[in-house]
């Protein structure tokens, strides 16, 4: 079995500070995986390392090819969309311009126009506000915009860093439903980092738990959420 994303002995550094200490994990094609862990465990750092946004060593292979030495923009162009922590919205631009930017590395104009319409179907509120400055959207709307912008790449793999952050529980459910749909219908492999472990485990098929830069637990999402010890000691519910 070949993994879509295969990570071995990943170590990441902020200056002298080491944040990841030999991480190993892989994602199966078409899977929905969640990466859980406490604040400061290294979840964001892991996603940043995949996109070469932090200095790291070890091997990261995407569809069998190593990513090391590639620039962030070239990694993205391979089909890896990354919704960063804090969303990374272009707040001074319009909603529609944000979507266009998501597709900036593509050249099929007709396909891009179709996809914009498709995003408006997924997220009707974005259609209502398409000429509005993105910075004026509510937090939930901006999160939807961030997901839509990432989808405009037509990614093969999507990395999401705490998509539920700051959202009302009902909106989180909506968002996760949409992610599930994207995963199944568009065959996008998804790796989602979450604080909201309970919800993430309901949705994902595989889960990894990370603690101070190391994977301390892995398995099917069902097993992990059924294991009371794990839940108590790592996930806090």
């Amino acid at each position, binding site marked *: 079995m070949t993994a879509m994303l295969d990570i071995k002995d990943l170590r990441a550094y902020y200056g002298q500070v080491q944040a990841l200490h030999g991480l190993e994990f892989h994602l199966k094609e078409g899977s929905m995986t969640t990466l859980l862990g406490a604040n400061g465990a290294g979840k964001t750092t892991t996603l940043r390392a995949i*996109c070469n*946004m932090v200095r790291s060593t070890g091997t990261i292979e995407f569809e069998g090819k190593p990513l090391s030495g590639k*620039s*962030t*923009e*070239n990694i*993205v*162009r391979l089909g890896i*969309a*990354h919704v*960063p922590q*804090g969303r*990374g*919205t*272009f707040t*001074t*631009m319009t909603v529609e*311009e944000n979507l*266009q*930017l*998501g597709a*900036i*590395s593509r050249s099929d104009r007709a396909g891009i126009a179709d996809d914009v319409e498709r995003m408006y179907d997924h997220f009707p509120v974005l259609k209502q506000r398409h000429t509005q400055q993105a910075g004026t959207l509510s937090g939930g709307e901006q999160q939807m915009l961030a997901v839509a*912008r990432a989808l405009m*790449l037509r990614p093969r793999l999507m990395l999401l860093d705490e998509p539920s952050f700051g959202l009302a529980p009902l909106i989180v459910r909506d968002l996760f439903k949409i992610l599930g749909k994207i995963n199944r219908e568009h065959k996008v492999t998804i790796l989602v980092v979450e604080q909201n472990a309970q919800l993430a485990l309901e949705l994902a098929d595989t889960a990894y738990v990370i603690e101070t830069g190391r994977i301390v637990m892995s398995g099917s999402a069902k097993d992990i959420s059924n294991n009371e010890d794990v839940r108590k000691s790592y996930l806090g519910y």
Partner: protein
Amino acid sequence: MELLTNQILAGIATGAIYACMALAVVMIYQAIDHLNFAQGEMAMFSTFMAWQMMQWGVPYWAAFVLTLILSFIGGIAIERLLFKPLAKAPILTNVAGFIALFAIVNSVAGLIWDFTIKQFPSPFGSAPFLGSQLISTHQAGMIGVTIGLLVLLFLFFRFTRIGLAMRAAATLPESARLVGINTSWMIALGWGMASAIGAIAGLLIAPVVFLEPNMMGGVLIYGFAAAVLGGLSSPLGAVVGGFLVGIFENLVGTYIPGAGNELKLPIALALIVIVLVVKPSGLFGHTVIKRV
């Protein structure tokens, strides 16, 4: 009253030059968050290249287009060779880079073309514009070119994908990389465009001040003032700032007794400082809220 209208018109005419310089300044500032002190010298060098071509018998408009192309390439080359390596260096290192570039371009121009002043032709002539004594055809042409340039830049940034990518790279480089934009090349492109816009400014101003290696010194100060007054964030702000500085300067020279030619620069700059004290982000700037 007629004196006032005359002075405002004349102010707009000189303001067009400042507006052009300010456009170039804003282009680079948007890309790298620094004021390019060598912008004026680069423009002067471009103007000399055009002059040289015309000496060799190239017609004006052909020399104009060739100069723009060469300046565009030259701007990109300067960024790749000198400022890309300094991208992560402290601000003072960059400032030193700009000053070095200033000195090098200035003395190389002096070496090749010496420091004697040279006539430079205007494509618009110098007859009275529409038979009026207020402004000349050259001044009217300058205003027209500046406004045309502004419209082109607006269309470029608003309606082209590369313009959109440049804006994204300037506002949020990290997010821009995450949608696949090569931000480093966007900066180089900004330098190329700024260099070409500066060349236009140089070609328009040379018929007025005569061509020599130090011709842009005063102009660049006004260009900076215009860019800052306009808020350093938009081409429109730069152009409006340029016209306002031109008008200020002329009105100060005319109406403040004893100001004359010596004091109009400091007084105009003082007025600008006052505006900035009241509105620190400039007339068209939006206050940038930096997240910590």
